[in-house]
């Protein structure tokens, strides 16, 4: 690993530790969900009903760590913060692993 790459990795590690800002600030400023990414309860609040097709597809997949949060919907904020940092680490690891696997597979076929 070059010195430059080492610096970039340190930068990414610092970013991972700062990620809780991405849940703290929206919470602080009461910003709610991203537009068009509401859960079905929120939609019922907005429209008075849940569109039929949306209702059927909404639970298509049960993600193992929904919303980057290990503690469930009513988790304490500190749990959410720790979950968020760990999620960032998992994300880095998974992204790096997948990129190496994909590129390794490509290179192997080349030779």
């Amino acid at each position: 690993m070059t010195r430059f790459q080492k610096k970039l990795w340190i930068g990414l590690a610092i970013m991972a530790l700062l990620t809780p800002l991405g849940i703290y600030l929206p919470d602080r400023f009461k910003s709610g969900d991203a537009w068009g990414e509401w859960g079905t309860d929120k939609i019922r609040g907005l429209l008075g009903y849940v569109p039929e097709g949306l209702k059927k597809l909404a639970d298509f997949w049960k993600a193992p760590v929904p919303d980057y949060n290990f503690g469930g919907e009513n988790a304490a904020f500190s749990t959410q913060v720790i979950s968020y940092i760990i999620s960032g680490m998992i994300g880095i690891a998974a992204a790096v692993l997948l990129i190496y696997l994909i590129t390794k597979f490509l290179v192997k076929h080349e030779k």
Partner: protein
Amino acid sequence: MHIPDGYLSPQTFVPLYGVSFVFWAIALKKIKQELPAKYIPYLAMAAAFSFLIMMFNVPIPGGTTGHAVGGGIIAILLGPWAAVLAVSVVLIIQAIVFGDGGITAMGANCFNMAVVMPFVSYWVFKLVKGNAKGGARFYIAAFLAGYIGLSVAAILTGFEFGIQPMIASGPDGRPLYAPYPLSIAVPVMAIEHMLVFGIVEGMVTALILKYFVKHEAELVYAMKEA
């Protein structure tokens, strides 16, 4: 901008899976043919970076949140096809592990953020910078690349939301999927990204490019091609 499951009709998400598959196939081929092995660690870091930057939700007080994607800076540094792969990998992890973006909507989300955004950003950067290799014009080009790339992706997402009521409604006339029409979905997605999140994306793009030009200028893909 991560469309969840249930917001898009099958008439929308199936074709968009098809389009994304085509781009994934070309991206893998291009990377196999053109990407030097020394770029692989950077590709991995690019994916890690994109994952992290999307975690920084930027609040609009009392309103909503959004985030940068990193698709523009990755396209400038490593090329648009490398960006297709890096951002797609991130979106797939986000959908499967964290439920951020739907599984059915994965093709659509990849098309918006991992295909359209990197290419728009890359073209804007090349077009605006001209022959500049530094200075104001060069960094304005980088800012605009991120800004316009994210805004176009957001408008496209708004368009995909907005056509749902036209495509699919129940016997009672109620929409079956994303409920808001084009006249609401497109302006909302456009305005919030053009006024807030696009500016963040543009600044991130310019600052990171500046850092790379200072330390490892010969690496920057968009500066190599004529």
